């Protein structure tokens, strides 16, 4: 029996993957781990590679899902993404997206998809 919040998290990732395919993304992989961190979903949006971070919170929690992705977390995502891109020898452009999901008491999902959360603010 897994803990309720982990259960919620996994269901959130499933929902996110469905959302991405419906938007025309090609999901390449899930829960990819490397020595720099973990990537929730890896997908292709046209010719751009996308590292997707999924955050789920139930309503009433103190921090909104998007706010829980702070600078440290972003740095980790950048490092993990860079390592992946290099290991796969991906030459093209890539970005990091964030899918923030909130579930209310009735069990309804509220989803927001933030594209390109570094948006040029990250310096190589």
């Amino acid at each position, binding site marked *: 029996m897994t803990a309720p919040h982990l259960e919620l998290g996994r269901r959130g990732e499933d929902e996110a993957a469905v959302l991405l395919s419906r938007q025309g993304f090609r999901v390449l992989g899930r829960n990819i781990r490397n020595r720099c961190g973990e990537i929730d979903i890896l997908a292709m949006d046209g010719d*751009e590679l996308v590292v997707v971070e999924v955050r789920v919170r139930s309503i009433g929690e103190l921090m909104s899902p998007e706010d829980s992705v702070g600078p440290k977390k972003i740095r980790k995502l*950048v490092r993990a*993404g*860079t390592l992946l*891109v290099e290991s796969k020898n*991906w*030459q*093209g*452009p*890539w*970005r*990091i997206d964030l899918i923030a999901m909130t579930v209310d008491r009735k069990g309804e999902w509220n989803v927001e998809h933030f594209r*390109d959360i*570094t*948006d*040029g603010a*990250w*310096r*190589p």
Partner: protein
Amino acid sequence: MSSVHGITLRGIEAVRVETEVEITGGLFSMSIVGLPDAAVRESRERVRAALRTEGLQIRGRVAINLAPADLPKEGALLDLPIALGLAAALGAVSVPEGALFLGELSLDGRLRRVRGAVPAAILARKLGVSLYVPEENAREVSLVSGVRAYAVPDLATLLAAFRGASVLSPVEPVAPEDEDVRPDPDFSDIRGQASARRALEIAAAGHHNVLLVGSPGSGKTMLARALRGILPPLSDAELLETLLVQSSAGSPYAGGRARSFRAVHHTASTVSVCGGGHSVSPGEVTLAHRGVLFLDEFTEFRRDLLEALRQPLEDGQITVSRAAGSVQFPSRVLLVAACNPCPCGWYGDPVERCSCSASDVDRYRRKLSGPIIDRIDMYVSVPRLLPEELMSVGDTTPEDSASIRARVRKAREAQLLRWEPSGFHCNAELPERLLRKSIGLSAEARAFLSGIAGSLRLSGRGISRVLKVARSIADLAGSPDISRAHAAEALAYRKGGLPV
């Protein structure tokens, strides 16, 4: 790798900048190198947004290099070449080789007016290449002859033209007419003051520096401002010089051939008057080039500011030094200074009493010496007219500025005819050698001056000034020679006519 040409300004000169753009894979980032200033660095946001409205998305790692690397790049005018470089790197357009581009981009792709369009036009002409500028700069560029220039309203139009979907029409060259200036105040608004009117007419004709001395209420400030309305129109060469300055300062061209009139307050900073500062912009003394620089309440000016004005007034140009090199700005101005005759202002007044002690007056007069006063050609004392005197001046409307200006204009044309082969525009800027040789002094005037020079204790410099002013008086009279009367009148404006 694609390279598009833009410019950066150094003083009033445009220097060519090559923008090289390279896009590779990676997390999106955009960097600009080549000593960009803050405005250039901010290009990133503007350019990206403008390209997005064109449907061009920038992703991946973008490196933009502005060459040459050691020249500081300034201003938002590099937006356009950077945007074109990116568009070309994305394969969306092919940019004609060698052309110069300038313009600031709005987020929606519109091109906005920039500084430096005229210097850019001069550079394009020199290099023999085409020039592309925002539509709002078209007017000033049209005044530069011999350059193939195109005015563009927005990025979309330019891209469409380069894709061959439309054709841009070139900017038509225009030679501006002398427009009628409605002077404020007009000389017809001033009653009496025959000596000051006469003196200012002479100063306008020959571009002579003037010092106006008078009590408060004598009207010297009003007279100084009225001078603006009688200045002769700019010649073609002078117009181009003025355009270069105004374009570099970002002032829109107002049309016509009117000379500038810049009034400087005595609390102004040295940088604002002489130029310099962070972005090496021209100071008042440059903005007044070929026009008038007015220093009211001259004795209130700080010594260091006056000292800083010495060089630009003497050389007709000012050099502003920076770590990366020095920049030259032109500064050939007609200086008008105004002051009171003594600290309380009432010395010699027919009614008011002067409350100054002898040492007060002495100290005050010492402020009226120095490098700036040395450059004054004409000393004019302005009486404070009493009500009964103003009445007796009569009902006839005094002569208006337009008529005076017509005479001044003819006198100035005579000077251009005479001096342009030697490279000078007016009597005031003549060097010594031309003064002695070609001034047209009649024998009678020569005898008169040599006879009187001793008793007047005129120095060599003093005599030169008298000769220049006499030459302008003769020009106003339409006379090729300087007569005794012209020379005698010129003496009335020399230093030493001031009450002691």
